C-alpha cells in the first residue's frame, strides 16, 4: 500500500500531507523565533543604561537586504504559479532569481558582519568610552584589525593602538580621549562616523584601556541577540536556498515523473521561504531602526 494523500488532497481536511506538515513545522518555527523576540524584549528592557547600542547598524544595507528578500518572495510564489500554469521555463527562471536573491542576501550579510568585526568600542580606565576603528602595521602594509579584544592587547604585547574614533553616538556620552580641539570635533561630527578613515587616528595606550571589544556577540546583549537572531535567520535562508536549488536542478526530472508532485513541493518550499521572509520583515525594523 502506498501512502495516500501525498499529492491529492484528503477530502475532509482539504490538505495534502506535505502542506499540513510544513504548516506544523512553521508553527514550531514561530515558537522558536517568538522565544528569541521575547528574549530581545526582556534583554532590552533590562539593559543597563548606556549599554544598549543604537545607531550602529547600517540601515541602507539592511533596507537593501529587505528589498532582496521581498523580491525573492515574489519570485518564489510566481515560480509555483508558473508550474500550476504548466510553464516550466518561467518556473525555472523565477527559481533562479529566488536563489540568486538568497545568495545575494547572505553575501551582503557577510559583508555586514565583517564590517562589525572591525568596528570597536573602547572603555578607558577614566570612564570615557569611544567607538571607532583600529589600524596596525603589518610590515609595510596598513591593515584593519579584526576581532581584537582586551585579551588580544596583552597576548600580542601591544603597547598602544592607532584608533580612528567615530562621531558621538546617540546612546553614550561623546567624550573623546585625548581631548579634541573644536575643529577636530566639528570635523568628526560632520562625517558622522559611518565608515572608515574620515578623520585622523589618535594613539591610545593599552595601559589606559579598561576594556576593548569589537562589535561581536560578546560586546553587549544587543549584539549578542543581533548576531544570534540574524545568524539563525541566515541559516534558515541558506537551508531554504539549498532546498529550492534541489527543486531547480532536479526539477526537470521531477516534472516529467509527476508534475503535481513537483508543484506541491515547490508550494511547500515556497511556504517555508515566505516564513523566512516574514521573520526578516520583523527583524529588520527591530534590529536596525528601533
Amino acid at each position, binding site marked *: 500500500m502506498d501512502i495516500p494523500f501525498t499529492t491529492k*488532497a484528503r477530502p475532509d481536511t*482539504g*490538505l495534502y500531507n506535505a*502542506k499540513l506538515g510544513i504548516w506544523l513545522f512553521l508553527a514550531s518555527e514561530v515558537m522558536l523565533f517568538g522565544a528569541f523576540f521575547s528574549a530581545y524584549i526582556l534583554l532590552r528592557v533590562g539593559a543597563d543604561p548606556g549599554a544598549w547600542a543604537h545607531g550602529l547598524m547600517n*540601515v*541602507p544595507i539592511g*533596507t537593501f537586504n*529587505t*528589498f532582496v528578500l*521581498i*523580491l525573492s*518572495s*515574489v519570485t518564489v*510564489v*510566481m515560480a509555483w*504559479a508558473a508550474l*500550476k*500554469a504548466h510553464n516550466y521555463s518561467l518556473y525555472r527562471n523565477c527559481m533562479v532569481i529566488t536563489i540568486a536573491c538568497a545568495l545575494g542576501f547572505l553575501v551582503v550579510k557577510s559583508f555586514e558582519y565583517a564590517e562589525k568585526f572591525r568596528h570597536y568600542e573602547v572603555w578607558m580606565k577614566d570612564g570615557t568610552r569611544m567607538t571607532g576603528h583600529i589600524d596596525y602595521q603589518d610590515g609595510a602594509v596598513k591593515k584593519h584589525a579584526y576581532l581584537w579584544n582586551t585579551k588580544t592587547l596583552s597576548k600580542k604585547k601591544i603597547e598602544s593602538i592607532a584608533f580612528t574614533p567615530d562621531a558621538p553616538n546617540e546612546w553614550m556620552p561623546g567624550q573623546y580621549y585625548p581631548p579634541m580641539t573644536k575643529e577636530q570635533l566639528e570635523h568628526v561630527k560632520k562625517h558622522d562616523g559611518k565608515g572608515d578613515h574620515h578623520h585622523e587616528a589618535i594613539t591610545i595606550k593599552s595601559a589606559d584601556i579598561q576594556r576593548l571589544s569589537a562589535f561581536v556577540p560578546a560586546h553587549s546583549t544587543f549584539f549578542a541577540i543581533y548576531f544570534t537572531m540574524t545568524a539563525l535567520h541566515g541559516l534558515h535562508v541558506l537551508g531554504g536556498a539549498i532546498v529550492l536549488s534541489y527543486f531547480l536542478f532536479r526539477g526537470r526530472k521531477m516534472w516529467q515523473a509527476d508534475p503535481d508532485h513537483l508543484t506541491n513541493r515547490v508550494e511547500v518550499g*515556497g*511556504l517555508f521561504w*515566505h*516564513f523566512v*521572509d*516574514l521573520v526578516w*520583515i*520583523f527583524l*529588520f*525594523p*527591530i534590529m*536596525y*531602526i*528601533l
Partner: protein
Amino acid sequence: MSDHTHDISKHRKIYITVGVILLIGTLCTFALDHFDSINLKKKVGMLVATLAALAIATVKGGFVAGVFMHLSNEKKWVYWVMGITIFCVLGLMGLTLWGMNDIPGQGHQFDLKTGLPK
C-alpha cells in the same frame, strides 16, 4: 484548496502588486530612521516610532501570509489561530504588567506574630 489552474495571470498580477506594496512598506520603515528631514524617530519619540515600525511590519507580514502563503483562502483557520494568539498575547502581557512591580518585601508589611498589617 481552491483551484488555481485558471486565471493564473490574474494571480501573477496580484503577486507583483503585493510585492510593490511590500517594497513601499520597507521604504516607510526606512524613512522612520534615515532621512534627517523626516526623521520621525527623533521627532516623535521612541514609543510612536516603535508602534509605527511594528504596525508597518505587521501589515507587510499580513500581505505575505495572506497572499503569498494563500492564507486568505483559509479564513476559518486564520480567525481561530489569530484569535487564540491575540488572546494569549493580551493575557500574558496583561499578566506581566499586572505582576511586574509586585516584589516581595515591598508594599504592605505584615507582623509575623499577629498576621496584621504593621
